[in-house]
């Protein structure tokens, strides 16, 4: 029954995305190689409005936080490596021949997780991009991490980076485990008596989702800051696990995955989403960059391009 409910939620969500994409399609020439952006599509009012709003302050704050990526029953933990693969990509120089914008960042001297660059905004004015990229584990060995006092600090740091981003940043991406709907999660997992991840605990308490919803609601009530613009959860079946609560509790656009996400796809999709935002891609091309039509590997965006 739960499987059926999950499937129905996913169905409704995927239809909403498809319908929204279709509505935003500017012409019938879907094979056009030109990427539609807020800059080259002046008639696409919802696209231009979305990026005017995102870049209104002349800067944009983006956080990418990798959750604790254990591989139980194996001991390997992967988020440090996945984060480093991500970081290497954003530090590469941008190629003149490519529209890709997940590149060309410069790292802060004394904060290994802070990166920045400047891009031209919708009207050509410079926009400063501040990108914070953190991970959750201190080594690749889950058992060693549990015995390392530094792990507690790192988990707390990653969680604060994530929730602090939901409270204050413009864009937050989470790349990690869904924990059966109890994620996002930044700590070594709670284990059941049999040594497996405690599915019942995560499903009943939903600690990560509850903290997310609570922080989103605090921000929604606050008068001293703008709304979170985009929340991307690059985790397994995040459309089914989290969409209903997050869409109900926030005005933020939501990027999610319909299927179980392979780690390499999650990295690619989060880089694509970062680039699409900075390229100012309009809806159809944004979702194309996320491979939204390929559920087994892609993600999808909903709610950034609102009707005007």
């Amino acid at each position, binding site marked *: 029954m*739960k*499987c*059926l409910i*999950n*499937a*129905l939620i*996913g*169905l409704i969500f*995927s*239809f909403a995305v498809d319908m929204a994409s279709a509505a935003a399609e500017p012409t019938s020439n879907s094979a056009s190689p030109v990427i539609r952006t807020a800059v080259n599509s002046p008639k696409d009012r919802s696209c231009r409005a979305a990026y005017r709003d995102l870049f209104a302050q002349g800067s944009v704050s983006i956080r990418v936080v990798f959750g604790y990526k254990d*591989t139980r*029953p194996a001991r*390997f933990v*992967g988020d*440090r*490596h996945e984060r*480093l*693969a991500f*970081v*290497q990509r954003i530090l590469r120089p941008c190629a003149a021949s490519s529209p890709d914008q997940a590149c060309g960042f410069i*790292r*802060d*001297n*004394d*904060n*290994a*997780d802070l990166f920045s660059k400047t891009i031209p905004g919708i009207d050509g004015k410079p926009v400063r991009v501040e990108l914070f990229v953190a991970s959750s584990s*201190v*080594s*690749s*060995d889950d058992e060693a991490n549990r015995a*390392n*006092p*530094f792990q507690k*600090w790192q988990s707390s740091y990653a969680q604060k980076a994530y929730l602090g981003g939901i409270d204050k940043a413009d864009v937050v991406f989470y790349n990690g485990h*869904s924990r*059966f709907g109890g994620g996002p999660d930044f700590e070594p997992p709670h284990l059941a008596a049999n040594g497996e991840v405690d*599915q019942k605990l995560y499903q009943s308490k939903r600690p990560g989702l509850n903290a997310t919803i609570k922080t989103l609601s605090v921000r929604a009530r606050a008068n001293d800051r703008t709304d979170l613009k985009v929340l991307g959860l690059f985790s*397994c*079946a995040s*459309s*089914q696990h989290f969409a209903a609560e997050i869409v109900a509790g926030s005005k933020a656009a939501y990027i999610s995955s*319909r*299927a*179980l996400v*392979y*780690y*390499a796809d999650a990295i690619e999709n989060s880089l694509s989403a970062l680039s699409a935002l900075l390229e100012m891609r309009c809806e159809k091309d944004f979702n194309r960059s996320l491979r939204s039509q390929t*559920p*087994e590997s892609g993600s999808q965006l909903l709610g950034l391009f609102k009707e005007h």
Partner: protein
Amino acid sequence: MAPSSHLFTASDFLWMAVMFRALTTLLISLLVATPGDAVAAPASHEVSQWTRLARQVGQSETSRSAALRALRDIKDLNPTFLQKALDGPHRALALDVISALELRQLIPDLLNRVSSDEDGFLVLAINSLLDEEHKDLVIKSYLERLDPSRPQIYSPAALVAMLEPLGRLGIPLSKETVGHLLEHEYPEVRSAALLYVRSQILNFNSRDYSALVVKALNSSPLQLRLQAMYLIDEMAKKPTTKSLLDLDTIAAACQKEKGSVKDWCAGVVKKAKSPQSNSEAKP
């Protein structure tokens, strides 16, 4: 109602299309979208299905077992096929399959590819295949590649991945090599070098690297210094490693910090100097 010469109107077709799409999506969702559900593997598979099966290798134990059985049954999914796949768009999946099927005969070929391992996942796959038979070959290869006198052509991610088994197995690196890694352009490599030092000191009782902890404490970024402070705190709790700490030098390094980090760092030193330093400091 006037009789129509057509069985369905355009609107009917539209709704039929929508309903067909809905049912198709529903079926796909039922098949792929629920974590923890076992995906039943058919009796036999074509090699073209290997990527779909490989994605299931990292899922629940039930899915993983079924996927591994199916992958093993694919006749054409042999080492030669996977070697070719390493050069294509499904490189990560090929590495996972090589690792999951324990194709250790590919280790020499994988070692030859380390210089092109941009994301470190190839070295991690080698690490996952390490056994007694191949340990010496792999370790020798890693030690040569980490030698600072050789051209540094390896990605930061590959360097980080190569350091891991060396730390876990207690393979000694020269102080010069570790010192060099602690000065790497990428903070992630510096952090991995300090993690190696931690393992050598705490797990293998090595006395050679304590000066490198202080070096890290005087380095950038802040994250590396915090990692060093935690290691100092751990060393201070063990009599055998406490004696390796030059607390006055560490205290001087703490003075360069600001705010709560400075206070915490000073607290670690103060506690280490006390005769009974076995309570846990928290930043």
